[in-house]
């Protein structure tokens, strides 16, 4: 038996066992954070500070991307729909794709790379420079003081960011198709309003963004807290945050969509 094959199989097994360990640690960390959230909820000013860093500062990229995504959707939708003479349905197309899918998913992907990576790097660096250990020495719980406020700030910001993404996107689609191309304004809005249902489309979209917010920020704070306390470890953790949370968003999106939009007769 060549030694190289044995080593290869061992490597695979090692990685599998290691990831199960990590999953267990992550679950325990998540539960611990939820239990200690009460303390940080009482000091709401901490959460407001973090909403400023994760939510408010992500606003520019969310709004600009939303505008462009809506404009592209309007252009492409018009291009295809006008072949069938139904270009007034472009409003429906833009609004439904934004509210149901693109708003939650793209906003969450941007949020993961803009705010999630920053959270991981900050917590990881705090750990590498032994700030978290120093807090524990002063009897300050780092999970209640540092981790939980960042988590809740992300969970609170995410639905607002996605809602802004969707509404700015609809406005972008309006700009391109109605103002630039000249689709009839009345039918643009009325077809959109008759097709987009509040409970079925918009509430389901908001539920999606809440789930994504929890997933992205939970991954970000765990990766930061679990990072090896070295420069290389922090950079690796930041990369893992973006990769893992992007995959988690896309996977969860499929599962949620399958649950939400299947049984519509």
């Amino acid at each position, binding site marked *: 038996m060549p030694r190289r094959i044995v080593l290869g199989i061992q490597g695979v097994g090692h990685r599998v066992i290691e990831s199960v360990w990590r999953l267990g640690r992550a679950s325990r960390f998540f539960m611990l954070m939820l239990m200690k959230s009460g303390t940080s909820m009482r000091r709401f000013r901490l959460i407001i500070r973090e909403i400023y860093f994760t939510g408010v500062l992500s606003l520019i990229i969310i709004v600009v991307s939303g505008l462009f995504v809506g404009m592209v959707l309007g252009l492409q939708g018009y291009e295809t729909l006008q072949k069938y003479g139904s270009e007034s349905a472009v409003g429906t197309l833009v609004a439904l794709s934004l509210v149901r899918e693109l708003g939650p998913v793209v906003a969450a992907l941007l949020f993961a790379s803009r705010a999630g990576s920053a959270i991981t790097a900050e917590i990881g660096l705090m750990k590498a420079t032994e700030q978290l250990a120093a807090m524990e020495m002063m009897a300050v719980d780092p999970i209640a003081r540092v981790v939980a406020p960042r988590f809740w700030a992300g969970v609170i910001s995410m*639905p*607002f960011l996605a809602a802004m993404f969707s509404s700015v996107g609809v406005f972008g689609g309006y700009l391109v198709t109605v103002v630039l191309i000249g689709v009839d304004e009345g039918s643009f809005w009325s077809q959109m*309003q*008759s097709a987009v249902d*509040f409970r079925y489309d918009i509430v389901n979209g908001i539920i999606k963004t809440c789930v994504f917010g929890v997933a992205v920020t939970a991954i970000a704070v765990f990766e930061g807290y679990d990072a090896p306390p070295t420069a290389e470890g922090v950079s690796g953790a930041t990369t893992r945050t973006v990769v893992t949370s992007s995959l988690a968003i896309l996977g969860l999106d499929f599962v949620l969509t399958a649950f939400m939009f299947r049984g519509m007769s």
Partner: protein
Amino acid sequence: MQRTTMDLWVGLFVAAGIGALLVLALKVGNMGTYSAAQSYTLMGSFENIGGLKPRAPVKSAGVVVGRVLDIQFNPETFDAVVTMSIDTRYQFPKDTFASILTSGLLGEQYIGLAAGGDEVMLKSGDKIMKTNSAMVLEEMIGRFLFNKASENKDGNN
């Protein structure tokens, strides 16, 4: 000082987020069109509902007066029982005619109410007696072909 500006920005952020949600609900969605207006329910049984779906509009003279709430199959009479919710502002006479129509050639299906001349109005939970089923394109084409074929036969004889 630093703290208050931060609070201001977070406040603006949350306000903008709620504003965006309201825009989605009122301007993009259909919250504005069927708000919490008072409504009453009417029923109607149809032989064939075609492609009618829950939440389809109920129109009278082209104006939306309500929505389809629920569609069920009655296993005793073998027809479809459609429950509609109608805005209380609009009252219809007892002999109102309900038919399933299609907007445009490929458009969505809706229920059209044609008011009759009866003095007594329909009350909540009442059943519309006069109904007209959806037109199913295949059946119409089939009937047309059948008629054409029998016509030809008569002509040859």
